[in-house]
Structure formats: structure tokens, C-alpha cells
């Protein structure tokens, strides 16, 4: 048991957005009572997976202190990040936590040379004070991602490929030798032939430099490839989490099951099963407003109780599942509902 505080400890955070005008409008819960943590002595790649509107991007902004939670706390090395007020504290924070963004062509201003961002980072975070020292630091960081300062010097973003920029983006994040990197869909806009080098980079960082990575994605295949643990998000909730092999090889939540089935395999072997008819949900807004389990509207195993209240978190094997199917309560209702469920099968 480790005595040092956890690297990252997310405790029951909820983010509500007020949509609409000054007086009216509605409350949208983008992140709903989410908790998870990363240990400081065991670097890992933790994936937050979900579709658009699942709240994963909001959650990443929260972890970067870009947003404040409506309720709950985000502790980084024991400190509540919402208490970071002073600029010096913020600089200390971003020395240890760094982001990598989704769109490589938006990460750097199209009108600036990319190396400037690396020099800025080195100087602002106090890694190097002189330009020559900084050049060394920048070059080291770039070599870390398989590039060098000579390759990117004087280059504008559009002169580099998406894969190169994304590597520069990782290099920038590495300059201050952070403990945690938040990568928000880092490969979704990178060409397939260049994608794996970036994904592999995260593995290398974890294994060789003890950097933990929070990998935010909608792509379950790369998530399976690199992560240690995964959390599946749906409409603001984490519906299932655990070691990636367990969650993706034997998904317990019906939503995870549907997601996994829907991922087309890059081989023409499962064409038939993939082509089975599926039920597409109602519009997104409707699912947000639903009471009880957000998936109830299109769940093949839906029960009465699912529409009444939020399901509890249940431990199933090594994974945690937010579903009545596995709760004590469900067993009772299940028994009552048995005849019907048999008919439906």
C-alpha cells in the first residue's frame, strides 16, 4: 500500500452546463458523478472511451483545470486543482500535467513556426532560460518522439504531416518532464499509416519514462492496443470500467457490448454478424434528459427498474459496471420478470 498521495484522484465530479438564455434554459449534466484515480508509483495508460456527447471531452477539460466541477473534486498529488489560483501555482501544475490535442492542424497557430511553441514552453516553465539551453531541451524532447530540431526548424504547421505535428505536440508536452499527459483523441485526425507511431509513443513514455497517460478516444481498437485500464462513458456517466482486456473482451454492460459489436473489424471475416440489424437511439438530447439508466431507451435487456433510478455501480469480476443486471436488486426484479424475459428470448 502506497503512502504517497495518488497522482490523480477524481472524486464524484459532476459538471452541469446551463444552456439557453439569461433566465430560462435547461441544465445539461455533461459529467455525472464520475470517480476514478491513478496511482503515482505505477504509471499506466488509462482510457476514457465514449461516443460524441458522452462527456469525455468535458472531463478532460476538467482534469486540465480548464473548467471547474459543479460538484466533486479533482485532486492532483493530493491537491484540489480548483484551489490553484496564482500564476506560479498554475505553472507548477502544468509542469506536471500536459495536454495533447485532437486536431494536429489546429494545435499550433498556422501563422507561427511550430518550434516557437517548444521554446515558449521551455522558457515559461523555467526549464531553460537562454535560447541556447532551450534549444538543447527542445531538441531532446523532439528526439524523444523520433524527430529533431533540425527537422522542424523554421517549419509552419502546414509544412508538416499530421503525424509529424502530432509528434511535435507530444514533444512539447514532454519538455517539462510531466507526470501525466492528457491526450484527447490524439490520432483520430492522423492518417492510418502514421497513426501507430503516435500510439506507440505513449506506450514508450509509460514504459521508459514513467509518464501516465489519460487517453481519450472513441476508438476502441487503439484503446485496447495501448491501455491498461479503460472506462466507458455514456451521457456523462462511466458505465463500465476495469482492465482493458476484461472490459473489451468480455463487456458486461449492454452498452459496451453494443459498442464493441459495432466496431467493424479490419478483416472480412465477421461481415455477417456485423451486418445484423441494430436499433439506433433517439436523439441525443432525449437521452440526456432520461431518468434512470441513459441506455434504457435502446437496451435489449431493459427492465422496469432501469427507467426509474440511476443504476448502482456493481463489481463484476475485475470490472465495475453501472447496471441493474448485476445488482442484488436486479436479481429480485429479474425473478419477477422471468417469464417475460424468457418469452422475449
Amino acid at each position, binding site marked *: 500500500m502506497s503512502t504517497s498521495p495518488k497522482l490523480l484522484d477524481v472524486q464524484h465530479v459532476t459538471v452541469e452546463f446551463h444552456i*439557453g*438564455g*439569461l*433566465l*430560462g*434554459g435547461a441544465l445539461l449534466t455533461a459529467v455525472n458523478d464520475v470517480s476514478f484515480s491513478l496511482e503515482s508509483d505505477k504509471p499506466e495508460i488509462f482510457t476514457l472511451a465514449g461516443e460524441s456527447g458522452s462527456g469525455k471531452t468535458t472531463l478532460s477539460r476538467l482534469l486540465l483545470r480548464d473548467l471547474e466541477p459543479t460538484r466533486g473534486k479533482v485532486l492532483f498529488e493530493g491537491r484540489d486543482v480548483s484551489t490553484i489560483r496564482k500564476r506560479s501555482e498554475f505553472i507548477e501544475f502544468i509542469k506536471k500535467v500536459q495536454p495533447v490535442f485532437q486536431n494536429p492542424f489546429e494545435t499550433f497557430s498556422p501563422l507561427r513556426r511550430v518550434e516557437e511553441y517548444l521554446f515558449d514552453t521551455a522558457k515559461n516553465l523555467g526549464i531553460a532560460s537562454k535560447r541556447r539551453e532551450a534549444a538543447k531541451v527542445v531538441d531532446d524532447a523532439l528526439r524523444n518522439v523520433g524527430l529533431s530540431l533540425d527537422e522542424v526548424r523554421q517549419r509552419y504547421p502546414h509544412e508538416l504531416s499530421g503525424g509529424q505535428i502530432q509528434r511535435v505536440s507530444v514533444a512539447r508536452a514532454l519538455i517539462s518532464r510531466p507526470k501525466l499527459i492528457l491526450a484527447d483523441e490524439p490520432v483520430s485526425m492522423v492518417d492510418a499509416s502514421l497513426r501507430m507511431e503516435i500510439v506507440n509513443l505513449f506506450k514508450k513514455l509509460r514504459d521508459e519514462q514513467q509518464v501516465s497517460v489519460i487517453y481519450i478516444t472513441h476508438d476502441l481498437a487503439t484503446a485496447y492496443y495501448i491501455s491498461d485500464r479503460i472506462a466507458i462513458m455514456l451521457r456523462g456517466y462511466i458505465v463500465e470500467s476495469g482492465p482493458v482486456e476484461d472490459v473489451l473482451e468480455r463487456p458486461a454492460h449492454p452498452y459496451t457490448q453494443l459498442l464493441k459489436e459495432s466496431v467493424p473489424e479490419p478483416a472480412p471475416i465477421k461481415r455477417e454478424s456485423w451486418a445484423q440489424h441494430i436499433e439506433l437511439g433517439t436523439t441525443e438530447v432525449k437521452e440526456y434528459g432520461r431518468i434512470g439508466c441513459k441506455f434504457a431507451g435502446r437496451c435489449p435487456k431493459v427492465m422496469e427498474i432501469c427507467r426509474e433510478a440511476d443504476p448502482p455501480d456493481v463489481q463484476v469480476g475485475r470490472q465495475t459496471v453501472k447496471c441493474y443486471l448485476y445488482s442484488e436488486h436486479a436479481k429480485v426484479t429479474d425473478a419477477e420478470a422471468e417469464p417475460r424475459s424468457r418469452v422475449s428470448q
Partner: protein
Amino acid sequence: MRKFVLRYLIPRIIQYLTLIVVGITVTYVIPRLAPTDPVEAQISRMMSLGSSVDPAAVEAMRTALTDLYGLSGSPVEQYFAFWGRLLQGDLGPSLDNFPTPVSKMIGQALPYTLRLLIPALIISFIIGNFFGALSSYYPENRALNVIEVLGQVVRSIPYYIVAIVLLVVFSYFIPIFPSSGAYPLGTRPDWSSTQFILTYLEHSILPAATLILVGFGGWFVGMKSLTSNIISEDYVVYAETAGLSKNRILVQYIMRNAILPQFTALAMVLGTVFSGALIMEVVFSYPGIGSLAIRAIYSNDYSMIMGITIYSIIGVATAVFIMDLLYPLFDPRVRYQ
């Protein structure tokens, strides 16, 4: 409906009220910036014009002026007193035509301005937008390119110069239009006589042309830049790929979408267009608010100028407010949030 009221209507009402408060406050503050006592300066200015004014009238004017400037009591009291009178529609008497109320004179001049301004605004809006869209959809067309250059030139030149040029050309070098007034000097307006209405129209052609010309340039240029963005929108490319006729695409896909921001722009330029109309009236000695204003300037009729300013602010603000309220009729995205 409730959502519409809360999200759309209330912010607009707030904006409307802000507009009036800002405008009226500005007009309240301005006289107080004057380095001299405005009342005395005013009276001495009037005296210096040499007209023999009897002392009782001067005294009455002094009271009226002090009242008008709202110079009794502390600044805060003055400010509220100012509002108090405004809300009663009391803008005081004209100093030049003492004691005819300013409101009455403005009321008489306003129809002339509006009868010119509104049709000119509508016509320039329609043809400017139409040709602007046309010219960006048919970039190769020579005639449209010539129109564009004209539009750009006219748009960048002040109203006054455009008016003067038209005046010089069409009533001095080529005298086909009367040069001043809304009807010949010495005629009395008689709205039942066709003869009178015809001369009235004849006199209005040049002033209206000035307004339309300048407005046309503005709408043309604005529409052209809007449509050149819309032309590359997916739904236009799609409609072309689907083989829709050029006319249908131009009207239903390009103009229909580009016109929406133009409606917003219409509300924003009302103040400018109104100002332009005033200038145009001065050039053509057209008997509207503009002429009233210049006469007031020459005769130092302060209360008239104040009245015109306040009425203009309220009038323009109200027009903008009404247009804002009409906007959702044209844009389904606002209608169904």
C-alpha cells in the same frame, strides 16, 4: 413560446431599453460638456442676430432654456427631471418659432423624410442584394462587374458628395430635374390634386436616387461577400451536384441564406441611413427633418436640435427593435431552438 420570450424577446427588450438610455444619456451629458453656461450663450447668440426681441420674451426663453437644459438642482436631480419631461413627451418650444412646440414641427416634417427614406431603403435593399448575389454567382459577367465597380465607388464616397454630384449633373449641366424642394416654391401642399402629387414625385426623384445609389453600393458589396462564402457551402455544392437549376439555387439556396445576416445589417445601418437622409435633404432643400435641422442650426434654435436628436434616437431604436422582432419570421433556426 415561453422559451421564445425568455431567450429571444427579453434580451431584445433589454437591448432596446439600453439603446434608449445610452442615447438619451449622451444627449443629456453633451450640453454639460460645453465650457460656457449654455443658457446665457444661447441668449446672447440670439440677441446678436440683431432681431429686436422684447424683454418679456427673453425672460420666457430663459426659463424655457433653463428648464430644457434641466439646470436646476443637483446633477442627479437634473438627470431625473430630464427623463421626467421626456416621458411626458415635453421637448419644449422651438426658440425660432417661439412658442410652437418642437414636437409639432418635427411631426410636420417627419412624413417627408419617411416617405423618401422608407421606399429608398427598401428599393436599395432589394436591388443591392439581388445584384450582389447575382454578381458573385456569375463572376464572369461583364455588366455585373461594371455595376460592382460603380457600387464600390459610390459606397466609399460620402452621401454629401454623391448628392452634390447628382445635383450638379442632373439639374445644372443637364437640367432635367428640379434642383430643390419637394414642390415648387409658393405652392401649397394639396394631397388631393394629382398635379401636385406628380410634381412632388418629380422633385423627389433626385433625392431618392441619391439614397438608393449609396444604399445600393453598400448592400451590393455586403451581399457579394456573404454569398461568396455561401457558394462554397456544402448545401449549395450539393444542390448543384443534384442538378438543380441555377435560378432555384440562386434564389432558394444562396439568397435565402445570405439575406438573413443582411436583415441584421439592415437594423444596424438604420442610424447611418437616417443620417444620410438628413444630409441629402440639406443638399436638395427637401422639407424634412434635415431641413428643419439646418434651419435650426442657422437660427440657433437649440431646443429644436435637442428635439430632433432625441426623436431620432427613439425613432431609430424603435425601428431596430421592430426589425429584431420580425427576424425570427425569416430564420427557422431562431424560431425552433
